């Protein structure tokens, strides 16, 4: 009972705090300041999402086939070394990747997309590979033993059973991607980083937050979208969240 009461009190305190926050932001004019940036936020959010979509989409298109290829029995000799290269690649900071790609591809959208693509590729390829390798050998033997061709085994047994792990990789990768896009502003690709970095440089917290808050919201929305997709797409029998 005391815990119940404490919860009630906390909820009321929270409501009061939100109300006071609203009162303060209204009276100090912060809300109006934010509204001043609204058109910028709209334009930059579209740009931001476009960068994420292109770099993330390309990464998915390349990483999944790459993971599949590395998990084939014929690739066994190269797979582990290739995964090592990818792992080392993951340790390079995204900012450094962006700087490197700028020095080769110049300024603008192309080097930014390329840098983001490289950073997003790794978690997806790694999870695809690990997911496929994690399919139980007994399942593979059953699939072979009843007469499935290697392609049928991949499509009907391996991929469906690895799908949950693959989606976990996509989810991590895309969420990081959305959070990394602001850096793309530094090499001239736009996005919500424009408000954040300019805000920092001008010591304008409102401008900075006008970039940071939508970025955070976007990351949450993308994460929720991917997990919803996984919930729907991954078959019920191998989907822990639908067990």
């Amino acid at each position, binding site marked *: 009972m005391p815990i119940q009461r404490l919860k009630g009190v906390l909820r009321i305190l929270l409501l009061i705090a939100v109300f006071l926050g609203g009162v303060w932001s209204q009276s100090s004019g912060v809300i109006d300041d934010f509204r001043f940036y609204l058109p910028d936020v709209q334009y930059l959010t579209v740009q931001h999402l476009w960068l994420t979509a292109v770099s993330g989409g390309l990464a998915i298109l390349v990483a999944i086939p790459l993971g599949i290829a590395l998990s084939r029995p014929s690739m066994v000799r190269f797979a582990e070394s290739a995964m090592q290269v990818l792992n080392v690649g993951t340790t390079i900071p995204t900012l450094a990747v962006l700087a490197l790609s700028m020095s080769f591809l110049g300024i603008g959208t192309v080097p930014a997309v390329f840098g983001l693509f490289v950073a997003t590729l790794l978690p997806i390829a790694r999870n695809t590979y690990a997911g496929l390798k994690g399919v139980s050998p007994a399942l593979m033997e*059953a699939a*072979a*033993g009843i007469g499935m061709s290697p392609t049928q085994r991949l499509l009907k047994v391996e991929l469906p059973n690895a799908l949950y792990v693959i989606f976990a990789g996509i989810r991590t990768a895309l969420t990081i991607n959305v959070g990394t896009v602001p850096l793309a502003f530094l090499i001239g690709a736009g996005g919500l980083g424009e408000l954040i970095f300019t805000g920092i440089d001008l010591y304008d917290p409102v401008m900075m937050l006008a970039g940071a808050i939508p970025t955070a919201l976007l990351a949450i929305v993308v994460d929720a979208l991917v997990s919803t997709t996984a919930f729907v797409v991954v078959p019920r029998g191998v989907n822990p969240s639908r067990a």
Partner: protein
Amino acid sequence: MIRLDNLTKVFDTPKGPVTAADHITMEVPSGEICILLGPSGCGKTTTLKMVNRIIRPTSGKVFINGEDTTGLDTQDLRRSIGYVIQQIGLFPNMTIEENITVVPRLLGWDKARYQERARELMRMIALEPDAFLKRYPSELSGGQQQRIGVARALAADPPVMLMDEPFGAIDPINRAVIQDEFLKMQQALKKTIMFVSHDIDEAIKMGDRVAVFREGRLVQYSTPDDLLAAPRNAFVESFLGEDRALKRLNLVKVREVVSDEIGTVRPGDTLEQALARIDDFGYQNSILMVNDKHQPVGLITRALARTTKGYCRDHFQNVPATVTLEDDLRKVASLMFAQDTTWLPCVDDEGRVCGQITQRAMTHHLGSRFRPTQEDDTPIPDAATRE
């Protein structure tokens, strides 16, 4: 029919070539279950998996129903052979229905046909179709999963089945139930089955024939009864265990040992008459009393008949137990031990006494097969031993 002709597998290992199966030649007649038996690493699983090319033979041939399978496409070959593995290997991403119908779908059956087949199979393995078809393997118990595994192997009605320790991962109680169910299905289906096991009791229960392997070689190939009665060498003998004569009790039915000569008395007979009959038949302890329908109703003991006067109907003891013609000797022996008796009356379907079974007759029946022990005296059908 499955025929293996000099089937050999040599694995290349870092320590040099290892022969896992050495010129295995054997034949499983149509409609029979052949158990491949032996300790681990003896080549039984390798031999089984060479039939559907999960393991590629180094040399030798496999014939199925007289046809050399060497030239067949691997996928086509496998689709025509039912395959059950110990780990069950149901696809967790598919429903039970999808799992069962996977081979028919690979073969391109139309939807109505494979759906009807799934329901038919579910009824065959005694699982309610409506309750189970739309569920996923993870929602079933181990025993239910393996039943589905067997149903999946039977789906396209293959003439031949390979089973790799199919019931090995199931608890003993469920295993016995599934074994019985499977034997009942097999009586109707008459598949030709190769079945790997390391359990001698399972082999004797399930097998029409048993092939014993050791270090890649086929040591003995015979019926379970021949195997237990005449093990070919010391290895087979030790593998079968010191109680192999007792294991044969499972294989022999009362029908084979029963003697229809049995003396009885009626309730209306006097004890004096009973004593005379006991002596006439040479019984040691007692004689059976039957009613008008020839059903056993009591026992008159010798001690009582000698010391008391009167009618049988007033001085009988209860019959300890009866056996039927279809019981196996293991049950009979168990009843005899439990009741401290050396004979039991045997009754037919209507409960009428039709004979008796004695300990002496049982030991005689079992012992007669052990007596001719000369090594190559016993015929070993189709065996190609290379000792």
